[in-house]
Every structure is written in C-alpha cells, then in structure tokens.
C-alpha cells in the first residue's frame, strides 16, 4: 500500500468505562493533544467487546480498531480483560491470516491515570494505520448494478 500523505484514518476505539475511558478523559482534561482520528465508543468492560464488533467496524468503514481496557488484575469485574485478551489475540492473528494488516486491530491497556500513555497509544495506532493506508479488503461497497 503506497503511503498517502493526505490520508486521515478512521479509528474506532472501544474503551472500558473504568480505566481507558477515564484515561482518555484525563488526557482531555490535562489538555494533552493527540490525533483526532479516533472515535470512542464506551463499553462497560473490554470483555464486553464482541470480536464481531471488530469485523463489523471494519466492514462499515473503519480503517482500524482499537480495544482498550484495564491492566491485567485491575479489571473492575475481576477478569473481563483476561477473556478479552484471549479473544483478540486469536482474532488479530486470524485477520492477519486473511490479509488484513495487523496494524488495523490493536489492543492496549490504559489505566485511568495514564492520560499520557493514551496519547502515545493513539499516536502509534494512527501512525501504523496511516502507513498501511485505507481499509479496502472487505469494506462494504456501493454496488453498481
């Protein structure tokens, strides 16, 4: 994929209510600037995120998906993030196997106090997706009959 300087990716981020969402909020209240490509969807726990959400987001025009939850051991619901970790490790490997670049599906642990880390994560994700270009594998297209 050729690097396109004008390409601004759409990133859908699923953030857990208790850590990452608060972390992103902290980044905002601390007036940290980070790339504005990310669209945040708040979920109660990273374990709530169905692997089909990822697939569906990529179908509907997201260029990348980020799932972010509490650090292992910090989950508000004890171990939701451990289940999520298993799920998305498999999903990521599988999408890579189909030819979807691994940069498009990312996962991170961001706690409520890590506003600065949130900025770094978003920068890294957005850089990675800019490098691989727009999602064109199985995005829904307008059909020309």
């Amino acid at each position, binding site marked *: 994929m050729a690097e396109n300087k004008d390409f601004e990716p759409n990133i859908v981020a699923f953030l857990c209510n208790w850590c990452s969402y608060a972390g992103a909020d902290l980044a905002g209240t601390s007036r940290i600037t980070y790339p504005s490509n990310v669209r945040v969807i708040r979920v109660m726990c990273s374990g709530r995120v169905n692997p089909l959400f990822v697939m569906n987001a990529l179908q509907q025009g997201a260029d990348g998906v980020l799932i972010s939850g509490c650090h292992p051991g910090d989950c508000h619901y004890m171990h939701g993030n451990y289940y999520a970790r298993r799920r998305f490790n498999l999903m990521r490997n599988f999408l890579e196997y189909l030819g979807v*670049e691994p940069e498009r599906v990312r996962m991170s642990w961001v706690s409520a106090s890590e506003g600065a880390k949130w900025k770094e994560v978003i920068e890294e*994700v957005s850089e990675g997706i800019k490098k691989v270009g727009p999602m064109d594998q199985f995005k829904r297209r307008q059909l020309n009959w």
Partner: protein
Amino acid sequence: MVDVNKLREKAREVISREDVRELIGYRPGTYGFRARPAFVMGPDDTGELIFTPACVNNLASYIVLEEKLPVKRGEEPDLRKVAVMVKGCDSRALVQQMEEKAYDRDRILVLGIPCRGVVDMAKVQAKYPDVLEMGEIALEGDKFVLSFNGTKEEVPREELVADKCLRCRYPTPLVYDELLDEEVERFADDDFADVAELEKRAADDKWAYWEEKFSRCIRCYSCRNVCPMCYCEDCVLDRLQPQWMRRSVDISENTAYHISRAYHLAGRCIQCGECQRVCPVDIPLMELNRKFYKDVEDLYDYEPGTNVENPPLLSTFKVEDKEDFIM
C-alpha cells in the same frame, strides 16, 4: 476392517435394549461408491448397516441437530439414549459437545470404530466418473480395493484417502461404550505446514488468495448446517436484530460470514473436515479452521475435543496468557 456381521449383530443387540431409542449408523448409498447415514429405529432395520471407507459423514452432527419438539401435556419426555457409530475424528466432536455441556454422557451410547482412513469422494468420483451402479470400497493394508461391475481394482491408499486422514491424530475413538474393532495406533501427525506456508505470504497476497475463495461463496450455509459444533438454537447469522451480516452475496458480507463462522469454531473445531467436504464451490474452509487450531495449540496449549474435563477455551483464561501483542 470392521466385520460387517459383527457390526450388525452388535447394532441389533444395542437397538433391542430398552434404554435405547434409535441408532445412527451408515448404510449403502443409492449409486456409485457412496454411503449414507442410516437411522435405525428397531432391530429389524439393522440388516443394511455397514462400515466401509466410504462412510465419510460425521454422525455426531445428528445428535445435536435433532429437533426437540415440545412435550405434550401429561406425557413424559423421551429420555432414552441415542446410539451412534463414530470414527476417531467423529468421537472428538462428541467429546467437544459434552465439554460444552450440550448433553450428558448417559444420553448417548457410542459405538466406536477404529478407522485407518476414509476416502475422499471427490477423488473417487474424479477417478471413476462413470460408475453409476453400486460399488464397494474396502481398505486392505495400504490399498483401497474397489469392486464394481464385477471387476476389482486396487488403488494405493494415498491416492484416494481424504486429506484429513493423512493428518489424523486420533484414529481410535476417544470416547466409546463398545469398540467394534481392534484399536488402531496413531499413524500420522499434523505439522500445519499448509497454514504456516500461507501465514508467511505478504498481506496483499493473502487477501488476493482469500478474496478469490470468498467471492465464490453462494452462502448456502451448508458448512454451518453440517458442522457438529454449530448447534446454537439462535444462530448469529439468522438474527435480524441486530443483523450482524446482510444476506447479500458480495465480498464484504461473504468475508464477514466466513470470519464469524471460523471464529465461532475457535478452540472448538475438531478437524472432521465436514464443512470443506460439503462445500459446493470448493472453498478451503479447513484452512481457516486449521489456523485457529494451530494458534490455539501454540498459544494456549489446548486441543479441542480431547478431554471432557477441559473447560471450553474462550470461557476460561490463565493470568500468564501471552500478551506481547498488547500496547
């Protein structure tokens, strides 16, 4: 080889038992070398039962797919056992279903058949396209013996055997009440060379490969319907609220279908190869399932359908699971 008389005698004995409702086995098909499933309801129906290398179907699917009609008022539910004939690979489907608590062990009676490989019907059909009258296949040593039209032909095992049998890890059923033949020792192993080869390709190359495969899909859902592990009462594909994938046949929806089908089998697929066998457009579905199988084995040291005591893979976790992919 299973002695057919012994098999029928055992089947007669089993179906005559009071606590057995029906027996699922194999009988000859209507043409060529084919065999088809037989549903035996009484001792008089056992005369046609066979087991040959043509018995490719995985009968474990029928146990979970049976429609459970509501019980009429005043009637007791029929709790008698279902007897089922299984090969090594099929028995793993039973183990995995029981691991998921689909039913209790005492609801089924398993007639295990140690198996040294079944044929790939597509290969047989390609080699003998004109055989329309009934033929028979037997495995003798390293050769398949095909008898039809009064002639007998010997074909080397490698030429006709199904691909899954070349990688079969469990030729003897892992769960059984009665074993119909002597145990077969493990004769092959799986190194996932085909998956590893595809993994190494560049992303564009991989997608070009899968795009061609997925674009052939006509969404007949045969692969779902035949799968012994696809027994959800409310399938995500049939749901309209939310509608996870649209019914239109285009590359986006086809890919979504194949991702969700394969993902639902992550840590559950037992490599019976039925999905690929029934696919009318020859999509290599096992390559998708085998990717998950390989990952699950590498990452979590888990093999589906081998131990009833194992908890299902994705409903459990270990604190020390790998997380090198996480930022």
